[in-house]
């Protein structure tokens, strides 16, 4: 793993933090074109909203794949730092697939994706017992058009916070 790449990805994430919507969509494309500079408001860095919106609670995957892109790794590094600093939280990582696949295969594929995120978070120092994984396969799409623009957003692993004493 190249330290330089990781640093670039982390910068991209920070840049995106100021962007109001669709930041995870842009990060999936490597963070290109992120518009920085607009004020994001004063989110408490220890809040779940900060985790979701500023760190980014999800990573996206290529078709039928569960490997983590450099951009996805950058987001997960941010998640790992946040989870290390906010040790009260446990998480469920939800894996999802787009509709272009059979139901049970997509369940297994979603599990692979969620597990890839979990393993990466473990490698970044988050304790395994804090993280469950569950797959919804193609049962819970976010976007419902039948085009790659939507499919790309549906192929995701989402880190959902639970059990926070402060949140």
């Amino acid at each position: 793993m190249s330290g330089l790449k990781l640093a670039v990805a982390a910068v991209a994430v920070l840049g995106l933090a100021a962007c109001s919507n669709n930041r995870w969509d842009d990060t999936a494309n490597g963070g290109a074109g992120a518009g920085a500079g607009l004020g994001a408001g004063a989110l408490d860095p220890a809040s779940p909203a900060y985790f979701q919106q500023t760190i980014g609670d999800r990573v996206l995957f290529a078709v039928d794949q569960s490997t983590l892109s450099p951009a996805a790794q950058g987001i997960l590094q941010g998640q790992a730092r946040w989870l290390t600093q906010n040790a009260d939280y446990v998480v469920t990582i939800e894996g999802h697939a787009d509709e272009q696949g059979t139901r049970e295969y997509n369940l297994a594929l979603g599990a692979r994706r969620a597990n890839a995120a979990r393993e990466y978070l473990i490698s970044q120092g988050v304790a395994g017992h804090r993280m469950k994984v569950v797959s919804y396969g193609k049962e819970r799409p976010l976007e419902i058009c039948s085009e790659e623009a939507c499919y790309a957003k549906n192929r995701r692993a989402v880190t959902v916070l639970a059990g926070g004493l402060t949140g």
Partner: protein
Amino acid sequence: MRKILAALLIGAAAAAGAGAAMAQDGPLRIEIDQGVIEPLPYAVPDFVPETPAASEYAAQIARVIAADLSGTGLFREVPASAHISKVTGFDSPVKYADWKAVNAQALITGAVSVNGNQLTVRFRGHDVFAEKELGTGLQFTGTTDGWRRMAHKVADAIYSRITGESGYFDSRVVYVSESGPKNDRRKRLAVMDYDGANVQYLTNSASIVLAPRFSPTGDRVLYTSYESGFPQIHVLDVGQVQRKVLSSGDGTMSFAPRFAPDGRTIVYSQTQGGNTDLFSMDINTGAKTRLTSAPSIETAPSFSPDGSQIVFESDRSGSQQLYVMPAGGGEARRISFGQGRYGTPVWSPRGDMIAFTKQNKGRFHIGVMRTDGSEERLLTASFLDEGPTWAPNGRVIMFTRESQGSAGRALLYSVDITGRNLKPVKTPDGASDPAWSPLQN
């Protein structure tokens, strides 16, 4: 509960009719395997009501029989408006000339009587041009609320006599009823007659439910539910609507359960650490056996009807493909080698074929192949066809077809294994994941 008490041969006339059934060279024979065929014209006049309370059933039973037979695409009804003679008595002589004149090659006559809540249906089939009875007359007795089943049994008998295949009309389908938009879809288990009648809901829509399967005797249903927050295997007694969770809720995912022919063993997928493998379980003792241990995805298993083998899908080669292995695990042999990805294999109840879903070049197909993978034949093509299930006679396949786009919804379709007679199956709402029951007793 609807129950059919007896199927009896009809006395003296039956003996006379038996001779006709033996005649192999009669005109009334449909070879289902043949290519394009002209549907066989038949007439089914209203059955004769023999008690006052029977009149409400007499016409309806004939209509259900006609819907069954014509629905196969193998038969074409000569409508009542074309009939010349009226059947007024079940034992009156049939005026064959009147039926020949309207070119009805087969004629079905029957009588209905009601005694309390007991309904008795008698029927005979006739080979019009041979002027003979078609097989033996039969009688079914059951409760009045089971009248549709008796109609299906009559249609099964007629279908069976003319095609030489066993019937499939007296059967049920368990499926997932769907409502709401794609991004907030509500799912609940439902069971219905094969033709969409008598829909009954088995779960509420509070949790996602997936991919039900009937037990070999049709009394229980295995399915996957998210009730615990994680996909877990449940078994449900259809008559009692009582449920039991078969897999533990400790955060591991289990899904894709299917019964073995013994009705006691199940095979299913379990996910540990992102890896999905196949396991079997004795549902009485809970004892589990691991069947595969590969880093790839192994899921969507299906037993051969003799219980000796399992067909399943795996992406161990890099993409979803079909494999066959011994039921106890062991070396798996790949059987799918065409272009694209293959999933959801289902072994035919006749044992001779495997139905599957194929994805290729952005399209989905339902197809069939021999159990060694030879003679692959695609039956359908659409944006998203998935999840075939076999009619009890192994001649018809039902599956899910999901339409494209943000307003897309899932509906059930059926198609013959020849690829003919593709048509939607009527359901009150959206529907997916059909699983056909065996023929009812």
